[in-house]
């Protein structure tokens, strides 16, 4: 049984949340079944009642669990990722059918959390981050410049994956089972720096749209992406669908 790692920088309730979520996703704890009581969970994982409560609350909020007054807490039929449609890969994000997409990986290396990256990814300043810079092209025209930051410990093997032909999102979810349950999107206007403008084939200081995205698995930040789009030929599309009641 997976246990809480007290040496880990992650908060205890987040670790417990992840452990329980995994049990649900692996069907170790079956849909419809009752989970152990708070007291039993405290004993199982050697944590306080407050830690158990916070983890359960979060799992309930995200639709993994359902509380029934006087009966207990039960596994729900649907997890949140099935209820919320999140269009986050490059193709899904932006474009209509019938266009040819391609990706140039400009950089894939490892850096340290400079500026406020440590805060954004909730990691200590001495932890490593995988940095990926990609130029996205539609019909051979550069349209999007994307910089992605992922804590190294989340997916060390990502450094060896083919992310030129495969969606990073799909690699994380399908190959490594890292379910993305929440994305926070911020859109703002920016001006292109010299190097970015050159890559996008636009004049320096041109107005551009900046989409910053914070990806979470549960409450754990797993990826931070900055996408700059200079061309006005294409639009950002962020499609969110309310979960069925």
């Amino acid at each position: 049984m997976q246990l809480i790692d007290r040496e880990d920088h992650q908060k205890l309730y987040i670790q417990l949340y992840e452990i329980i979520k995994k049990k649900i996703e692996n069907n170790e704890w079956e849909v419809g079944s009752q989970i152990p009581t708070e007291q039993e969970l405290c004993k199982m994982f050697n944590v306080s009642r407050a830690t158990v409560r916070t983890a359960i609350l979060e799992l309930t909020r995200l639709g993994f669990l359902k509380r029934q007054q006087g009966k207990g807490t039960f596994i729900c039929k649907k997890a949140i990722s099935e209820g919320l449609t999140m269009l986050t890969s490059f193709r899904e994000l932006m474009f209509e059918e019938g266009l040819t997409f391609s990706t140039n990986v400009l950089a894939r290396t490892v850096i340290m959390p400079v500026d406020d990256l440590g805060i954004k990814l909730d990691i200590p300043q001495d932890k490593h981050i995988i940095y990926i810079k990609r130029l996205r092209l539609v019909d051979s025209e550069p349209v999007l410049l994307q910089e992605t930051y992922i804590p190294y410990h989340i997916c060390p093997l990502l450094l060896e994956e083919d992310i030129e032909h495969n969606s990073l999102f799909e690699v994380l979810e399908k190959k490594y089972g890292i379910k993305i349950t929440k994305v926070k999107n911020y859109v703002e206007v920016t001006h292109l720096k010299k190097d970015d403008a050159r890559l996008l084939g636009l004049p320096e200081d041109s107005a551009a749209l900046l989409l910053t995205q914070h990806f979470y698995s549960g409450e754990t930040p797993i990826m931070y992406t900055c996408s700059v789009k200079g061309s006005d030929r294409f639009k950002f599309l962020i499609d969110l669908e309310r979960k069925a009641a």
Partner: protein
Amino acid sequence: MSDSKAVKDLMIGIFEYPHVPYWFSINQAVRIVRASFLSAKKYPEPMAILVFDEKYNLMGTLTLKDILRGLEPRFLKPSAKAQVPEEDESGLAIIWDTLFNKESKELAERAVSEIMIPAKHFVEPNDPVTKAAYLMLRHDLVLLPVLENKKKFVGVIRMIEIFDEISNAIIKE
């Protein structure tokens, strides 16, 4: 020292050290040193940063000495020795503002690739420790990258582990 001791027995993982790409500035490297070593109260010997290219190939290393050297104002750097007498440094009284001045802040905006020590010498995991010791002494290095099949960077071997190994053999009864 055991004859069979190989580099892989003494090497440490590359994630013991901070990584930066070559385009990071010296200023960023300084902040990384402070965050990774000083604030974290970790003082590895040597305190170094590994510099990589955009394809995650090791390009070089950066020690504290290399960083300070990169921040040293030009007027303090020794000029090429021609037919001039040896400098008398005993009376050299330099105040702090003069030593690392405004020019240093400008110098700190340069890329780390300008001041790193390029990684030219490597060992393989199965190489004998003696080979690592030889390369370090011969080329005045304190850290040596370990490459698998001359390509994949898998670890580093440091002077301190080599010293420990050799000194053990010497003092052993």
